């Protein structure tokens, strides 16, 4: 009988598990700490076309985060040997569920149940979104067995990085672009927390992929397969972008942003960039750079998580007051 192993954090299994565990904890957040209701006026001032693109962008993101939390992370962690790495992946899995829910937090705040239901119907019927999910899911489902070969594992990890670091960005563009102009900034706080999380997920899963890649008997074959997958998904992203953004005239900018992020996904996998990128939309970069203070006053947590570093321990003596000195006379 195989002995079941317990995770021992006293001995590092590699030089990055603990680092990523800590980074995940440092970034931890929940949707209810944020107050998108501050955006209600902003929402009402947006044109119906922009509202529609915004809803569709976030609807598509919901689908990807759902796939990632329900299938991607669980399938992958089942085939990763290091118990500490599994722990990091399970934390990330939970965050994906929080991400998926947080878009609903925004929808519930700014729109109606009827509109939300119509949006989810649109997500379920949109062929480009469905293609995106089905294509990635196929690589995850290849891990639906007890033993997988290293190439299957590499491709599933690679597909996950493509989802995290590339496929999300046709959606993220919209809230960042609005935020860069001072619109929907409270909701953008949530979006930026998601982006920060997806960024470290891409790095971590990318490192796992690179580790497996080094052991492959035919690395070039695996790399070619992954590049072909990226191309296939890229073609689909272009069509998806046209469908969501043509009405508001942003298609060219979004496509450039998609290429820029495809390059970053490849870098997370240890490969060279594929696309020539001229300029990332400055309004989007401004959206990322905007320091925000839109948070629940009582939990006092913004885009930066702050931990109290200077703690003075209270002692009984602290409560003995020298009345002569302290009395304000």
């Amino acid at each position, binding site marked *: 009988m195989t002995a079941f192993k317990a995770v021992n954090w006293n001995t590092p299994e590699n030089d990055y598990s603990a680092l990523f565990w800590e980074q995940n904890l440092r970034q931890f957040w929940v949707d209810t700490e944020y107050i998108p209701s501050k955006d209600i006026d902003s929402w009402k001032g947006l044109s119906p076309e922009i509202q529609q693109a915004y809803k569709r962008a976030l609807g598509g993101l919901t689908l990807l985060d759902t796939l990632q939390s329900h299938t991607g992370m669980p399938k992958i962690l089942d085939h990763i040997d290091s118990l500490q790495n599994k722990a990091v992946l399970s934390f990330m899995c939970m965050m994906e569920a929080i991400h998926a829910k947080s878009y609903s937090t925004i929808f519930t705040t700014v729109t109606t149940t009827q509109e939300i239901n119509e949006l989810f119907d649109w997500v379920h019927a949109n062929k480009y979104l469905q293609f995106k999910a089905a294509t990635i899911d196929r690589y995850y489902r290849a891990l639906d067995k007890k033993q997988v070969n290293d190439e299957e594992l590499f491709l599933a990890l690679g597909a996950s990085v493509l989802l995290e670091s590339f496929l999300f960005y046709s959606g993220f563009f919209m809230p960042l672009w609005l935020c860069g102009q001072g619109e929907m900034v409270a909701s953008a706080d949530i979006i930026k927390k998601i982006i*920060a999380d997806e960024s470290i997920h891409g790095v971590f899963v990318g490192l796992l992929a*690179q580790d497996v890649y080094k052991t492959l008997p035919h690395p070039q074959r695996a790399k070619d397969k992954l590049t072909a997958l990226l191309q296939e998904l890229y073609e689909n992203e272009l069509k998806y972008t046209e469908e969501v953004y043509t009405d508001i005239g942003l298609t060219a900018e979004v496509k450039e942003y998609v290429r820029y992020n495809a390059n*970053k996904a490849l870098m997370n996998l*240890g490969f060279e*960039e594929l696309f020539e*990128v001229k300029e990332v939309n400055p309004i989007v970069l401004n959206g990322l*750079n905007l320091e925000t203070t839109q948070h629940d006053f009582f939990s006092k947590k913004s885009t930066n998580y702050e931990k109290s570093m200077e703690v003075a321990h209270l002692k009984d003596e602290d409560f003995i007051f020298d009345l002569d000195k302290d009395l304000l006379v």
Partner: protein
Amino acid sequence: MVPLIYYDSKTGNVERFVHKIKALTGWEVLRITENIEIKKAGHLVTYTTRIGEVPDSTQAFLQRYADYVTTVSSSGNRNWGKNFAKAAETIAVNYHLPILLQFELSGTQPDVQKLIHLINKEI
């Protein structure tokens, strides 16, 4: 004098970046380790960690060898907004060093060309 680069890397991004420079120029690149001993001046390339912070290993290196460091560059990710590649900014302030380049992840080809150009200008 042939330029020399001291670099720090955790996820391999900076390592890949400086090796692209080495492949094009033949410049010497030296990874920062705990027991590194240096005697020559060089350019520092590091990464940004946690939330906009300088890596501990880079801090330790600077405490011993800041006098040998002529410029600083750092990798990062624009997804972090104002914290993008902030390690270079913090080091520049603390050690009065000029920043040559802040780039994303393992750097694009234009980033590689840019740093080579900027280092050449320093000579």
